[in-house]
């Protein structure tokens, strides 16, 4: 994940109409925001439309970029709000429930440099992540893959920090038990 200072300078460049910086920001967050939005919409087309809306709003308000304290959190909150507005329009507001979110995890691919994780273990890990309860998987993904802090995750999802902490602990515990099984039987 991009460091905060880099994001601040990207923001400053965008404020000066720098389309190259804007493109960098887009490329940097497009896949991550799409995964987040897709969890709610379950539709590729709608997701692309929503994420495009999020980014065009950044471009439209670029003269006031300094009002955005945390660009990353802003992008996610904006993605969430835009998603909920779309779903409301489509009369699917019940789908904005955190317990019905379906996050597609990225492949935890076998890093050739990994000392302990074999290919087989990786498949188990992926399966275990996939089987996490919806809210738990969402929180796990936001923190691990999207590099969010507990506080940012809590703000984004309107839940308490201790809920975030609990859910992440539960996620790790469940994932670990899948691996323990591998140990015992191999």
């Amino acid at each position, binding site marked *: 994940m991009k460091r905060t200072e880099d994001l601040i300078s990207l923001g400053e460049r965008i404020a000066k109409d720098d389309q190259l910086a804007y493109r960098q920001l887009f490329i940097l967050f497009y896949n991550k925001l*799409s995964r987040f939005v897709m969890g709610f919409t379950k539709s590729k087309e709608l997701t692309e439309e929503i994420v495009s809306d999020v980014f*065009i709003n950044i*471009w439209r308000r670029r003269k006031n970029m300094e009002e955005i304290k945390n660009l990353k959190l802003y992008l996610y909150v904006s993605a969430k709000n835009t998603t909920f507005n779309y779903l409301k329009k489509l009369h699917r507001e019940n789908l904005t429930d955190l317990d019905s979110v379906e996050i597609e995890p990225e492949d935890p691919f076998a*890093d050739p440099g990994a000392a*302990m994780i074999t290919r087989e273990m990786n498949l188990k890990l992926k399966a275990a992540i996939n089987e996490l309860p919806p809210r738990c998987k969402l929180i796990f993904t936001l923190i691990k893959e999207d590099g969010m802090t507990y506080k940012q995750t809590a703000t984004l999802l309107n839940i308490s920090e201790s809920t975030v902490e609990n859910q992440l*602990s539960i996620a*790790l*515990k469940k994932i670990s038990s899948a691996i323990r099984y591998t140990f015992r039987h191999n």
Partner: protein
Amino acid sequence: MVMLNEPNPSQNKFWSLLSKKLSSEATSEELEELQSILLSTPDLHSQADILTEMWQQQGVINKSITSEGAYMRHIMKHKDEFFVEEDSIETNSDDIVSEASPGFFRSLFSTKRLFILSFLAFIILTTGAIYLLTQKNDAKLPTEKGISSIVTKNGNRTKVVLPDGSQVWLNAGSNLDYDNSTFNNELREVSLNGEAYFDVTKDPEKPFIIHTKKMDIKVLGTVFNVRSYSDEKIAEAALIKGSIEVTLTDRKDQKIILKPNEKISISNEEPKSEKKPEKISSVKAVAVRIPQFEVNDLKPNPTYNIIGEIAWTQNKLFFEDEIFEDIVLRMERWFGKKVTIANESLKNVHYTGNYENETLEEVLLSLKLSKSFNFRIGNDNVVIY
């Protein structure tokens, strides 16, 4: 496993501490506490190690093509806000902010410069009904029969969505035709003259075929770039993902299958090319009219880290060690001005360059730095001497 399910306060503490450590939320006291739990409970050690390693592995984000493509679509969708001359942005920022939904009619009533109007008018005139297809929730699908033509003039690029959902970015000075009444029946056939980047919707039942002067390209669902300008020496197809099958128009019996990150180049000239290897010319002596082709890997340019073949889809004018004579053709299309080299000796000078927002004058000034020449820019033509 059994042990994990038992209520065990110190174990719960362990998971909470490990979570904090991995997500960089732990204080130094908490790190120490975690360490002491690990020391007293060796059973948890290997689990902590594996989870740490898992945490450090980044999920696969090998989707750069997707996000590049999405960026292109994003820009095209809001083109009236990105293709604006810089000095007109400030005066318009207020009325842009207040608008939530995209759409091109809005632009007709805004105070933007005339050239945007002409750009949009151009889009409407040339792509007509097809453009409506790119606007979601629009029920008015074109039903008229006959040939649809999408044409881009020099200096313009556009994107269209075909009736099957496939997306095509059309580079300057190109045209793409298809028959409305038969497209998507059993085949999806289009003809291309010029350059286009295709993102073809997957449909194994209905092969997608692109006819060009020198080759036919058959695909099932894939992303690739085709370049076949009649005034260029070489025609190319570069495959980004999926697979495509190329048939040369002069030799229908031979099929060439491309793998991702390969490109095929075919001589666009009638068979008397000057600068091709001897083995081919010796073959030519026996068999008449064999188009010369070769298959190469697509390599990103190490300095700019972009793949030259698709740089234009990222709004970049990019050329890599090309001769000036060829570059000039690309500049003509890119900027929409006639460019002539009046000095023969300049035609074979090699240049490499990567430009994004530069004007034609800025590009020429920068090329001049590596090998000097003079130029004169007129209203719609440029002379290099």
